[in-house]
């Protein structure tokens, strides 16, 4: 039967093999190429096990042996806050169960599973970066901000901040972000003074450290000289240090009569696009006008910096009138600049007019020490040649004589050492200044010329204290004894008339009747303005108050507080035409179309004579 067994074929042969499992690929999102990974802050761990063509049955992530997450698939993701771990090295393991993929019989039927594991070293470092204060240096290129390089780890960037306003520390603007850790300076080419602050922040390890602010201050370029030179003013200013410099602009505004208008109303008289241009001479001044100058620095983008205003005295400006008294025979210097707070300004005096009320000598000293001109003040005006005049600092005044018989003074003469008041009144009219005293003079403020002078009559014992101005340009001046009529065109006294001494009051001009009306609480005096003829002189109750004249009705009325009545009188005759009771404290409104309107605490009364 053995032969028969050979006759029937039996398959034979074996294929013994030794399969090898395929190693899976285990990956972690942090860094697959290194076994040591530096971490900080919160991070998302994404892990995955892959074995191409073969399923992954489970994965597990462990840190220091503790399971962080376990999944039934090929991987997963989990957020980990590394701050819960101490600074230093920790192990992180990724474990996986995968089909072997060996090709063995067991693998082919799906029951061959192999474990896989990969381990990394986590270096946890949550140290906070420290940003020390930067240094700031202003150069021709701009403000250079420098800081020490951050050399630790996990550098992300430097953030540069500009603090535009030193007074607002919380206001800052991010001006640059630098991602190169080796770069340790940054130039702010947009720096445009005068003061600005800088700080920077280090972003590293998921943290930000901000340095203290460092302020840098650059003086604003400004005028340092505004000197009258000849007929012009020489201006000089400091050079702009800003890289963003665009141009200088010089503003000028006139300051009439000592006023100080805003320099921002000024007009540009010159502009310079070169930062090296630092001088300019203004020769376009008008005579007799003082100016203020201001330097404006403009950046290339239009930003502006304003320097301080720099006033100058006008070429030909009149010295402010002043009074000075000194004992006879003494000699003292009067510092003309003492009245000005600006000690750097210069007084450019073209003419000096001295009103002589007593014999005196005046010397003009350019430097305050040396007398250039010494002359007895017999003339009233001392002229200074503008072409040779140097800045005047002092005016020396020396008195040599005392009172004069024909001088007119009020009170005790000051020259004897008595500091009593000198009567000195002014009448302003259309820019003309009139000095009262022994002489009266009028000046044109533009041309600085004396347009009229006059000598007041011997006043006796009283001073000039009231005035009246007519629409025709005629003046009337009254003192206690006399009424003067003055022609404004020639500024001469035309006529004088005696006035009752006890009749003291307001002088009004009545253009419709061409009358001068003198109202007193206890007297009404009326003059004809043409020739100062006395028209009426009527006694009124001394208790009359608030006397007013109504030109339509020709009445003069007022409240007689003592009688508690409102009373009206005819102008010409002084006849009382109205007397009505009013409450004390009534307010009176006059001249209402010939009527008198009274009001008193809510009611009104119209009176028609």
């Amino acid at each position, binding site marked *: *039967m053995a*032969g*028969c*067994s*050979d*006759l*029937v*074929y*039996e*398959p*034979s*042969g*074996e*294929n*013994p*093999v*030794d*399969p090898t499992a395929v190693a899976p690929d285990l990956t972690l999102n942090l860094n697959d190429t290194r076994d040591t990974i530096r971490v900080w802050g919160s991070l998302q761990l994404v892990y995955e096990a892959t074995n191409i063509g073969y399923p992954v049955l489970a994965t597990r992530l462990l840190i220091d042996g503790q399971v962080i997450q376990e999944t039934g698939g090929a991987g997963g993701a989990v957020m980990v806050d590394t701050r819960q771990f101490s600074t230093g090295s920790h192990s992180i393991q990724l474990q996986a169960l995968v089909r072997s993929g*060996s*090709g*063995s*019989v*067991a*693998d*082919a*039927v*799906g*029951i*061959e599973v192999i474990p896989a594991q990969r381990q990394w070293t986590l270096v946890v470092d949550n140290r906070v970066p420290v940003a020390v204060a930067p240094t700031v240096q202003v150069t021709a290129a701009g403000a250079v901000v420098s800081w020490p390089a951050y050399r630790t780890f996990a550098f992300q960037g430097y953030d540069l901040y500009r603090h535009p306003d030193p007074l607002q520390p919380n206001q800052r603007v991010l001006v640059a972000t630098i991602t190169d850790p080796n770069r340790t300076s940054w130039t702010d080419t947009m720096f445009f003074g005068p003061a600005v602050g800088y700080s920077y922040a280090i972003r590293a390890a998921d943290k930000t450290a901000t340095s203290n602010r460092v302020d840098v201050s650059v003086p604003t370029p400004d005028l340092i000289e505004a000197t009258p030179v000849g007929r012009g003013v020489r201006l000089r200013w400091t050079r702009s240090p800003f890289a963003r410099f665009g141009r200088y602009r010089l503003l000028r505004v006139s300051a009439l009569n000592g006023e100080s208008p805003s320099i921002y109303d000024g007009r540009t008289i010159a502009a310079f696009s070169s930062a090296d241009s630092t001088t300019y001479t203004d020769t376009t001044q008008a005579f007799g006008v003082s100016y203020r100058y201001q330097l404006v620095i403009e950046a290339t983008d239009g930003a502006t910096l304003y320097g301080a205003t720099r006033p100058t005295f006008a070429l030909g400006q009149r010295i402010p009138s002043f009074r000075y008294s000194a004992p006879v025979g003494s000699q003292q210097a009067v510092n003309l600049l003492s009245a000005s707070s600006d000690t750097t300004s210069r007084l450019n005096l073209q003419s000096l007019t001295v009103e002589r009320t007593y014999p005196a000598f005046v010397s003009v000293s350019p430097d305050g020490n040396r007398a250039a001109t010494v002359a007895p003040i017999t003339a009233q005006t001392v002229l200074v040649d503008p072409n040779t005049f140097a800045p005047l600092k002092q005016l020396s005044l020396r008195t040599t004589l005392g009172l004069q018989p024909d001088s007119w003074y009020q009170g005790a003469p000051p020259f004897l050492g008595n500091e009593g008041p000198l009567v000195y009144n002014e009448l302003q009219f259309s820019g003309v200044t009139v000095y009262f005293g022994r002489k009266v003079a009028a000046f044109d403020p533009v041309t600085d010329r004396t347009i009229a002078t006059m000598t007041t009559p011997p006043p006796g014992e009283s001073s000039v204290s009231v005035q009246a101005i007519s629409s025709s340009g005629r003046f009337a001046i009254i003192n206690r004894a006399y009424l003067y009529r003055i022609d404004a065109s020639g500024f001469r006294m035309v006529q004088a008339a005696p006035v009752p001494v006890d009749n003291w009051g307001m002088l009004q001009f009545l253009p419709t009747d061409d009358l001068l009306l003198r109202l007193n609480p206890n007297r009404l005096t009326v003059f004809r303005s043409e020739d100062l003829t006395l028209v009426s002189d009527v006694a009124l109750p001394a208790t009359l108050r608030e006397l007013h004249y109504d030109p339509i009705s020709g009445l003069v009325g007022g409240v007689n507080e003592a009688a508690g009545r409102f009373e009206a009188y005819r102008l010409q005759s002084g006849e009382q035409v109205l007397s009505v009771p009013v409450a004390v404290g009534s307010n009176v409104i006059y001249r209402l179309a010939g009527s008198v309107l009274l009001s008193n605490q809510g009611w009104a009364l119209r009176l028609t004579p």
Partner: protein
Amino acid sequence: MSIRTTLTLALAGIGCILMASAPGAAQTTVRIRGSFNRYSLRALHVAQQRTEADAQTAGFRYAKAVDTFPDHTGVQIEALVPLSGAVSLIGSIGYGSTGGRIHQLDYSGELRLDQRLSHWSGSTGIEAVPLKQGPHSIRLTLSLVALATSMKDESLIRVLDESHQETTKLISSDAGIEVGAAYQISVGPVSLNARGALLAATGRPLHLSDNDKAQLYDSGGDPVGANWSGSRLSIGMGYTF
């Protein structure tokens, strides 16, 4: 060789002897022949290659065909009845087998895919003696052959100490024509015969033994049949009654 096959061959031999010794039978010769068979079985080769690839694809990465339907021995029993002169009527019953194996053996288990293929053939034809000189003769045969094919498809998967085995039996029936030439030397009633023959047969698809509609296709979608076309070199011993 199974008992069943042995009994079948024994009965066939007894049948031939009885036919030769029957009254009226003259010059009847019975031969028993052992052969070395070479078969085409092309479809089975292709199917085995595809199965091998499928096994690798399925995860048995190292699965490999270690036995691929090799040439193998067979046996035939013939009976010849002279018709006229040099022409005899010949009838025979034969058996042949071969097989294939895909195998993988590793540390975890074993994969074994065996195919045991066999056939019974019955043929009838004529044998002519164009040349005879003394005890030597040259003989030519032409036969029509009927083939009954049986294939046991046995798969075994063993993992560690657990195994799973499945056996499927498929059958088919085919027909063919065989021509052969033989040299024979006769000494008395005993003759020694050496023959070479070529068989051209159909290769109809195998199907389940209990369901002829369930035909066998390989993974490429091609029907798989056992095409026994091939050659047979055989030596036979005969006895003429």
